């Protein structure tokens, strides 16, 4: 899979920016079908950094009500990538 299809977008959140500052961990929204190996490769290729660890988790979509029907936003996969010392990614 192409790296651009693995990494959907970086996640810019309060929690994420705290983690990147303190633990050098960066979070991304990734393809649901992507596995940790693919994610590691993609991040290393796209951001030119050394990845030392990847954690993934499935995020449940939110329940949304449209008029009287209950709908659901899609589930998605989040990846928290730990970088090697001295490496950094500059989002935003």
């Amino acid at each position, binding site marked *: 899979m192409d790296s651009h299809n693995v990494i959907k977008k970086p*996640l*810019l*959140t*309060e929690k*994420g*920016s705290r983690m990147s*500052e303190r633990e050098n961990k960066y979070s991304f929204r990734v393809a649901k079908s992507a596995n940790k190996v693919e994610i590691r490769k993609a991040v290393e290729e796209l951001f030119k950094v050394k990845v030392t660890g990847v954690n993934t988790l499935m995020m449940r979509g939110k329940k949304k009500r449209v008029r009287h029907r209950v709908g659901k936003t899609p589930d998605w996969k989040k990846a928290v990538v730990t970088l090697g010392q001295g490496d950094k990614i*500059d*989002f*935003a």
Partner: protein
Amino acid sequence: MRVNVEELPGSRKRIEVELEQEEVSKHFEDKVKRLVMGAQIPGFRKGKVPGHILEKRMGKSLQGEVLEEIVGESYGKACREKDITPVSEPSVDTGSAMPQKDKPYSFSITVDTKPGVSIEDYKGLVLEREKVEVTDEHVSAAIQREREERAEFLPVNDRPVMRDDWVLLDGKSFVDGNAVQDFSDYMVQAGSGRLPKEMDEALVGCPVGQEKELSSTGKGGEQISYKFRVKAIKERRLLIVNDEFARDVGGFQSLEELRADIRKRLESAAEVRVEHDLKRQIGEKLAGMVEVDVPQSFVERQVEHMRQITRAYVTGQETNQDDGELKKLAMAQIKEHLAIEEIARRENITVTEEEVEKAGAEAAAAGLKKDAEDSDGLRWSLRRKKTVDFLLSHAKIEDKGKSLIMTPDEVSLIDRGQKGNS
């Protein structure tokens, strides 16, 4: 911050400002800190956005905002430091470079400043004082006016209108058949020339209650017609001028007392006028003594100010003075202002806070505009008054033969003005 001032012709100044890199980055940091408080970016609670993320997000617009801040702050600081009083909007030249967080930054501001003036020999200005002379004639004219004001109007029923009678009219006037004016209970003296000539003539001989119509042709060939009815005829009875009259007028014991009082009033009014005239002369002399290059924008601002004042007094009517004339006037006012300011500075004429407060309270008591917010204006007008008084006390005053009060007509005008004031 380094400030360099370059003098340009026409009292313009170019202020060159250079900021160190640390100063620039401090501005950036302060700005970001303030922006973070209100920034809302998805993924972050309000006020919790990290500075560097916000900075990235804003990009160029942040530079623009910082630039505004830098210019605003250093302009004020530079003016204070170099003692510059700007009189126009500053024009800022930043070149094409925007400030950057890790680089020093420089720019220049060009502004019209208040020109410095030098004025010598302001002590001992030669002024001409008009002579004040209140004659018996003037007093009599004032009394006559008083009589007319207090005259009784007695109804006349047994005869038609005669010349000099006062009549009460109802009526309408038409031009080419269209009603243009409608009047009722209009009191007018027949034959006094206040009414159109034809109407004045037709009025004489009308008995009470009679309606009349007449028409004439106007200058432009239009058909003018009047329709009116005499409601009442009145004869004016002037009071006899004697001690009783004096008592009625103002509780004076005798006619002599009344005359003395009127004389005193006229004299003081004339003195006020003389003093006013002297002060006007001072202003003119000062304006003539100052040679200064007044920036164009300053003159234009003054012209605009004068227009505003005229507008305030004459509502809905533009000044009909042309621009050139106004500009000349504005120039003279500016010169006078600068001269007085300079003299006040040299002679250490100052106004204390108490004086300002007192004057403000007086103005408020007199029902004038509230001066609380205009204490600067008030302070200046007090300082100006003091300076002019100072100049007046040091001036050489020469008496002039011509009397200020010329005609009884003028007397009545002054008298009326005085009464209005009291």
